[in-house]
């Protein structure tokens, strides 16, 4: 699904390529940011900053190091974490409970046309607590395998295999 040609064009400074990359990744990145900062407006701001960074720093993306999606994920998670560590966010969010992606999805009624709403809803219904924790830490919060293993008191190999099983379930639901 990764469009290498498109990324190359982006790196050359092609604005049309940037627009297509935005259309392709912005919603999922917005979901990541929102699941960290829990504020629509703040998440919007961060999303815009993230894509400005993508435009400006696209040359520093190297496919030998990883996926383009992963590169963007890291930018988005770092920007979001910087925000929640800032004073203004701490003051704002003091009394709010920290929702994870599951809470967000359970409370959500409208999904955009791009997402398989039915598949996602089904997936959330059957999601095991361990999957919920693994996906939240590894995907949404950007923990490393080692950090996740420590957090969940689980061997490194178990993090890898259990997470694989969790994602396989998601893929099954989405295919149906």
């Amino acid at each position: 699904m990764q469009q290498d040609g498109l990324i190359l064009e982006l790196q050359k400074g092609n604005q049309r390529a940037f627009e297509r990359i935005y259309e392709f990744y912005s919603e999922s990145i917005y979901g990541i940011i929102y699941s960290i900062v829990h504020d629509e407006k703040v998440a919007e701001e961060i999303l815009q900053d993230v894509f400005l960074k993508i435009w400006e720093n696209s040359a520093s993306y190297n496919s030998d190091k990883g996926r383009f999606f992963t590169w963007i994920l890291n930018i988005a998670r770092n920007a979001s974490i910087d925000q929640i560590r800032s004073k203004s966010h701490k003051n704002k969010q003091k009394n709010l409970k920290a929702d994870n992606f599951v809470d967000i999805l359970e409370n959500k009624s409208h999904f955009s046309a791009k997402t398989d709403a039915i598949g996602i809803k089904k997936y959330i219904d059957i999601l095991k607590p361990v999957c919920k924790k693994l996906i939240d830490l590894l995907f949404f919060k950007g923990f490393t395998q080692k950090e996740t293993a420590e957090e969940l008191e689980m061997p490194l190999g178990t993090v890898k295999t259990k997470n694989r099983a969790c994602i396989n379930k998601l893929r099954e639901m989405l295919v149906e």
Partner: protein
Amino acid sequence: MDIEEYISSGILELYVYGALTEEESREVSKALKEHPEIRKEVEEIEHALQQLSSAAAPYNPDVLLSSIKEKLADKDVIRIERKSKTKWVSYIGWAASIVLLIGLFFLIGDNNELREQLNSEKARTARMEQQIADARDDAEKTRELLAVLRDKDVSRIQLQGQNVAPEAYATVYWNKNENKAYIDAKDLPEPPRGKVYQVWSLKLEPLTPTSIGLLDEFSSDENKIFTLENANQSEAFGITLEPEGGSESPTMDQLYVLGAVAAP
């Protein structure tokens, strides 16, 4: 490499998350480029994860693209402006400053020069005005003299040189109606320092001298014509050399010129 085993190990999911170490990620990237099956698996995982996180987005943020593009345009403009400004504007700025500075020096120089010129012009103008005024005065005097000469009421009395100065000579033009006496003293010698000519109106029987005035500033008066008041019934005029400021009565041994008024 057992691709099946590699895929099912779960390393590819961690790869997409970015949860692996840099070294592990590089190895997966390499494997992915070598094996299309691995690449396909990674793309499927990525797609599923994108669906999941997209579902967590409050709404589809496509609408934000235009504002991001505006920001991009602003940044590009700023970037271009910064570049061009530092290059051109600063150079132009320095150049302009230098030109201005040079210009100022020239202006200061010019200004001083102009001021000097103005001052000398002012002085010249003042001199010329004075000359014009003098010329006007002279012309006026000349006109007056002409009028005097032509006036039928004016008597012309010639004063001859006396013992002290036989070469001396003077003429009195006397207008009896206006009681004015014009003394033409052109042929009197320069009075010595500290001395002044004094003009006397004389009655002859008995000899009674009456001073009618001094020939002041004799040396500086160019045409040597002096205008004096004379309301006397003069029978003769005499000019004596007196100490500065004049005397009560004439010093007779210093009588330079003397002449009698012709009987009517």
